[in-house]
């Protein structure tokens, strides 16, 4: 490597490092320890990769690995954390936020005395207020935040056409000014004896009384109105007789979400049926899209075929339209009474098919629609992979006297399979979690008679998870995260097993 290249490298690394250190200081100040740890690990890896000879391959991998860790690995770890909490409806906020919520909740509207007001401001952006009680008619002036009773004869007041326009060098604020200053004014607290008075709207002040008080030493919340003491139990402030105050807060609950999955018979029972169909759906999807995509790729890779560029372009259209729209279109086309598909069947064969109402036909429909959605992907990767097959091999096969079918069978197909086998495994995993096509086409339906869980005939594990976590009482993120980990474990295991086969394939290819 040239001297300038080395210098450039060190300079660049220095810049990146100093930027990193600068950010790290910021993170220390903000006490974001998790982010700090991530940053330090990332910086160390970067330096190691650039400076160490042994880590040479890492230099190529790191640019891709950094966003991968940040945007894929990190959210998964967060998800793992969430799986052990009660995060969800009723338990969304942190404990601090909940305490703040209760402490800023007041007695209103009971006995809150109200005041109309006028606001005045001096040149130093300091405010005073003239308050008139709506109940007693008493006039108050705020001085240093404390109310004193005044009369309109007060010598400090300057009148103009019957209105007070100035007090002690403070000028009266117009309505427009008030509007713009509401953000500042909402923080103002005035005091009268023990009471706190604050702004409620542009028209009035009110006496506020705090209803709940949080005792930091005891960690309990007291309702000052009733005297009931609430202690934090399982993510909510709970009274001695079991009343739980809403909102609750997020707490760790150990393996509770996982135990719920195992112990609740309603959830566990349909699991294997759903799993079987998920597996079948994913396998069928991969098989059908691959066969079709591959056949088309072979057909359209043929240099003798006229208009093949145009054909290819037209055939990727299903891929060019966002999935959620084409699935909705398909749902309309497969409508049992009004859909075009049944209308054509009716005209041609005098019969119709209950596409989305019959469990079996609904399954056929999702596989068919998924084929429509997915074959262009397979076609494109096969087109790419076909280019990697060396022409010398064909020449050799031809010299050996192989016909075109034999060349296809002995050369094209096996070699192509080697390069795209991992993609097939990936595609299987993708379809295993293909929420969109199920949710938008059949909604998991048709439902199964007598089922005690929201698991329809075409529900796959991921849509079943969705139904369980978000189709019940509010949204249960912690529970969803727990199931997602289980699904992840399943699909990772299946894939790892699949890879034992592709590994064998790869050995062959490396021998080439």
């Amino acid at each position, binding site marked *: 490597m040239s001297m300038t290249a080395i210098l450039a490298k060190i300079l660049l690394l220095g810049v990146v490092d100093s930027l990193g250190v600068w950010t790290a200081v910021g993170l220390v100040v903000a006490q974001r320890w998790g982010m700090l740890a991530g940053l330090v690990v990332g910086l160390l890896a970067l330096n190691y990769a650039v400076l160490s000879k042994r880590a040479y391959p890492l230099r190529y991998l790191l640019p891709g690995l950094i966003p991968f860790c*940040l945007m894929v690995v990190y959210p998964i770890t967060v998800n793992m954390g969430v799986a052990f909490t009660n995060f969800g409806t009723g338990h969304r906020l942190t404990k601090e936020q909940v305490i703040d919520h209760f402490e800023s909740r007041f007695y209103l509207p009971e006995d809150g005395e109200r005041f109309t007001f006028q606001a005045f401001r001096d040149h130093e952006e300091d405010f005073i207020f003239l308050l008139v009680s709506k109940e007693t008619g008493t006039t108050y002036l705020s001085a240093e935040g404390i109310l004193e009773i005044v009369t309109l004869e007060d010598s400090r007041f300057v009148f103009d056409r019957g209105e007070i326009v100035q007090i002690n060098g403070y000028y009266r604020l117009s309505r427009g000014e008030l509007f713009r200053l509401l953000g500042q004014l909402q923080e103002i607290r005035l005091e009268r004896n023990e009471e706190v008075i604050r702004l409620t709207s542009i028209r009035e002040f009110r006496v506020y009384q705090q209803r709940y008080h949080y005792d930091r030493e005891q960690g309990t919340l007291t309702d000052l109105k009733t005297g009931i003491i609430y202690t934090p139990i399982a993510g909510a402030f709970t009274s001695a007789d079991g009343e739980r105050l809403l909102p609750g807060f997020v707490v760790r609950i150990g393996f509770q979400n996982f135990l719920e999955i195992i112990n609740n018979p309603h959830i566990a029972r349909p699991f294997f049926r759903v799993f079987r169909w998920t597996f079948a759906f994913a396998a069928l999807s991969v098989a059908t899209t691959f066969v079709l995509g591959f056949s088309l790729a072979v057909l359209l890779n043929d240099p003798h075929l006229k208009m093949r560029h145009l054909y290819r372009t037209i055939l990727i*259209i299903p891929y060019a339209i966002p999935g*959620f729209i084409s699935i909705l*279109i398909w749902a309309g*086309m497969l409508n049992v009474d009004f859909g075009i598909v049944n209308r054509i069947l009716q005209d041609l064969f005098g019969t119709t098919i209950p596409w989305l109402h019959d469990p079996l036909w609904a399954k056929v429909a999702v596989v068919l629609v998924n084929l429509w959605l997915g074959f262009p992907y397979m076609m494109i990767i096969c087109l790419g992979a076909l280019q990697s097959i060396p022409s010398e091999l064909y020449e050799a096969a031809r010299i050996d006297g192989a016909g075109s079918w034999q060349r296809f069978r002995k050369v094209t197909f096996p070699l192509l399979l080697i390069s795209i086998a991992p993609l097939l495994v990936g595609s299987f995993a993708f379809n295993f979690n293909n929420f969109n096509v199920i949710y938008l086409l059949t909604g998991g339906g048709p439902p199964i008679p007598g089922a005690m869980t929201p698991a329809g005939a075409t529900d796959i594990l991921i849509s079943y998870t969705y139904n369980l976590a978000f189709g019940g009482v509010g949204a249960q993120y912690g529970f969803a995260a727990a199931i997602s980990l289980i699904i992840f474990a399943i699909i990772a295991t299946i894939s790892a097993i699949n890879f034992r086969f592709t590994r064998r394939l790869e050995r062959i290819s490396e021998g080439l």
Partner: protein
Amino acid sequence: MYSRHTLLGKIFRHLLVWAMIAFTIFPVIWIFSASINPGNTLFGLRFIPQVVTWNHYLDLFTNPLHPFGLWLWNSIKVSGTASLVTVFLTALGAYALSRFRFRGRRTGLLALLLIQMFPQMLAMVAIYLLLLSIGRYIPWLGLNTHAGLIMVYLGGAMGFNTWLMKSYFDTIPHDLEESAMVDGATHFQAFLRIILPLARPILAVIFILTFIGTYSDFLLPSILLTGTRQFTFAVGLRLFIQGQYATRWGIFAAACMLGAIPIMVVFLSLQRFLISGLTRGGVKG
């Protein structure tokens, strides 16, 4: 692999392709039909509506509340950048995995793929909060920025793509780079000057896949982007059909038709790269 066809063979092949095109294009005709239907319905009874209108198309470009042109441009920007960077990152990674032997290579490759299999839908909240935190320190990379969205897309750059690319690199003979390195080139130079040009077909494939994948994605951007002017095409499109009983199918279908054009353009212009690289030019029949 291919021989010249007899006339019958030719006709057969074209018929086969035409049958597939019919299957492909059928739903698209419905979308088009809805886009020129003055009623707001997706399920008219006729292919060609009684009254044909182009108002939905016009509305897309004239209604300032739906800056459709801007949405398209945003999408092209986001997908274009994400795809280019993805291709580069993937090529780098795949090169290392194909050419170097190091500890953890096999495991790493497997891990890359397995980790990608996590149902991303459920990681959304985490991604949202992560971008929120990042945005507090680096505003241009936070929520509601295209750079932030691209960064999330780059997270998925490795994984499946790396496998595809690595398999392709594996088939490129090593002696080409070796001779270059004998001539004094570094590994990196050999990668840039020898491998990348040879791998053009697969680079094109990954570009196309990433472009389309990000272009039609609505899940991520609908969570990360909130300003109407920041929307990508797919997110904007979803707005039209989100009201429970207030779907605007007409304008939605029109947007859908126009939105497919950039993908077509990208695919058409990259097709020429889908032909083998330098060493194996002519597969003469």
